[in-house]
């Protein structure tokens, strides 16, 4: 039977001839990840099941949600996870990047099944793998067994064609899609991105697209691996699956990206998407560049080009958090970090940064933050009466310069 890439990977990982949407399968898991916020509960569940992880090289622990610990409560959770890492001799323990970026840089291969105790684990599907977010107890179960059950999802096909206008990026494309599909439009479904826009997109931009599949309720984001993926993986082996031409999709979306303008998601929900013109001129207090959505080198590059040899507005604080140490080093080597600091940015260690509000960069009542992150829920970054507006790195950088929200096309 004709199948989608998601169905093929789940069939392969569960040793079935095929996996049909609605089937329940038990799949072998390539990697299971938990971070400092979700690992403690995962470890509690794991400890009730067994005392040894299924594979010390396939369980990955990342401290990224609040590292270094800002509170005693956070330090206590870190202590608990560190003890587990040492006791189980976990080889993949990191404190130098956002978990999804580290998985992409070090582990995920095409054809893998990867689960993470973080909803944005859908990001890694950009490498042609089935990757999805789970809760802590599920991850504890995988740490114990190396297996996980899944309901095989129906797939949605997003066929993206054409070229974006100058000043419009993958973030604008995915925000526009989330605005159309809405927060529950892809509930339980695989979100497959294809078309010549995706083929021409960098791996970083593909990661941005897949990252926000969860914001439409999607189970996973996925893009077929191609030569660009293999170049990125630089010899890491994998198994490439492709969707059959006559595979069945629950729905198909034809999107001409040339029509898309710079987008913003207005609070308090991610699907409240509008063209940037709707809020142009709105004064901001904070601008944040980073996260698993947009903390990669090309994002920092776009921002640097806008901010080099200039100063951000006096009313704004600009926070920059590279998504990983490797990106941080690359940005230093290119001089981007130096240029951003000279422009007035505060550069923070590679983590989730202020995105989850458990670390530096929180917002006061009534403050407005424009951010390259993926969520704008009330109270996420500090006071519940603060406003979080989501946008592309270019819109974030240009707005930091202007002190108010602007259309980045006037700045690139």
């Amino acid at each position, binding site marked *: 039977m004709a199948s989608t890439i998601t169905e093929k990977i789940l069939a392969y990982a569960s040793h079935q001839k095929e996996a049909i949407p609605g089937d329940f399968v038990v799949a072998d898991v390539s990697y299971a990840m938990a971070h400092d916020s979700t690992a403690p509960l995962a470890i509690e569940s794991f400890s*009730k099941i067994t005392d040894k992880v299924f594979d010390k090289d396939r369980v990955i622990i990342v401290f990224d949600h*609040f590292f270094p610990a800002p509170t005693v409560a956070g330090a206590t959770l870190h202590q608990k996870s560190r003890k587990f890492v040492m006791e189980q001799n976990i080889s993949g323990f990191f404190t130098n990047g956002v978990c999804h970026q580290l998985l992409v840089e070090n582990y995920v291969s095409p054809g893998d099944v990867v689960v993470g105790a973080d909803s944005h*684990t859908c990001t890694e599907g950009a490498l042609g793998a089935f990757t999805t977010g*789970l809760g802590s*107890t599920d991850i504890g179960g995988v740490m114990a067994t190396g297996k996980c059950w899944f309901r095989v999802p129906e797939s949605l096909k997003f066929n993206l064609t054409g070229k974006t206008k100058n000043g419009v990026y993958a973030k604008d494309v995915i925000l526009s899609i989330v605005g159309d599909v809405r927060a529950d439009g892809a509930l339980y479904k695989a979100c497959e991105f294809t078309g010549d826009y995706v083929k021409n997109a960098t791996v970083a931009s593909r990661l941005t697209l897949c990252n926000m599949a969860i914001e439409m309720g999607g189970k996973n984001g996925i893009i077929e691996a191609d030569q660009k993926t293999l170049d990125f993986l630089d010899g890491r082996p994998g198994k490439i699956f492709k969707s059959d031409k006559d595979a069945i999709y629950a729905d198909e979306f034809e999107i001409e990206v040339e029509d898309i303008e710079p987008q913003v998601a207005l609070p308090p*929900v991610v699907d409240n998407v509008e063209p940037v013109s709707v809020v142009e001129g709105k004064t901001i207090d904070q601008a944040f560049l980073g996260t698993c959505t947009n903390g990669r080198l090309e994002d920092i590059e776009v921002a640097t080009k806008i901010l080099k040899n200039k100063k951000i507005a006096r009313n704004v604080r600009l926070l920059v958090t590279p998504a990983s140490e490797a990106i941080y080093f690359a940005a230093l080597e290119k001089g981007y970090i130096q240029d951003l600091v000279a422009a007035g940015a505060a550069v923070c260690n590679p983590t989730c940064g202020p995105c989850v509000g458990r670390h530096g960069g929180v917002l006061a009542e009534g403050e407005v933050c424009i951010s390259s992150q993926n969520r704008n*829920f009330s109270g996420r970054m500090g006071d519940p009466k603060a406003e979080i507006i989501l946008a592309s790195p270019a819109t974030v950088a240009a707005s930091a310069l202007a002190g108010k929200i602007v259309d980045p096309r006037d700045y690139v």
Partner: protein
Amino acid sequence: MKVWKFGDDINTDVITPGRYTVTTDKKRLGEIAFIEYRPDFSKNVKEGDIIVAGNNFGCGSSREHSPVAIKAAGISAVIARSFARIFFRNSINIGLPLFISEDAEKIDDGDEVEIDFDTGEIQDKTKNIILKVKPLPAFMQKIVEKGGLVEFLRSGGYDNL
């Protein structure tokens, strides 16, 4: 049992804001459920009360703290038109009963609702109606019957399927 009614797309930052979830203490999590969105909730919720919501309840983060907090606050079940998938799995895994019902919208805040957990029958006594409930797939029912994922895996797990 008294109903606490919520709307569509209630996200995990609304249920358990990230700034309050730097803990695994269940009692503490029970105290912070809806702390900013609906401050009267944890003050007045009674053991056994029920949450009724619209579409996509529990969307957002994977944090299991959200269903743990709801359960620890005393909520005996959540009825919604639909649930976000990670929240749905998490709830089943930790033993918080969920019911998917198109009729959720007919129920109002403060209604008296009775759930027969053996038969799965849900009655809104205020409105005098029986709710139609979508049954759980058989696979998930096996995990529920064991009392959650930990017990399911402890008692043979996937080898028993």
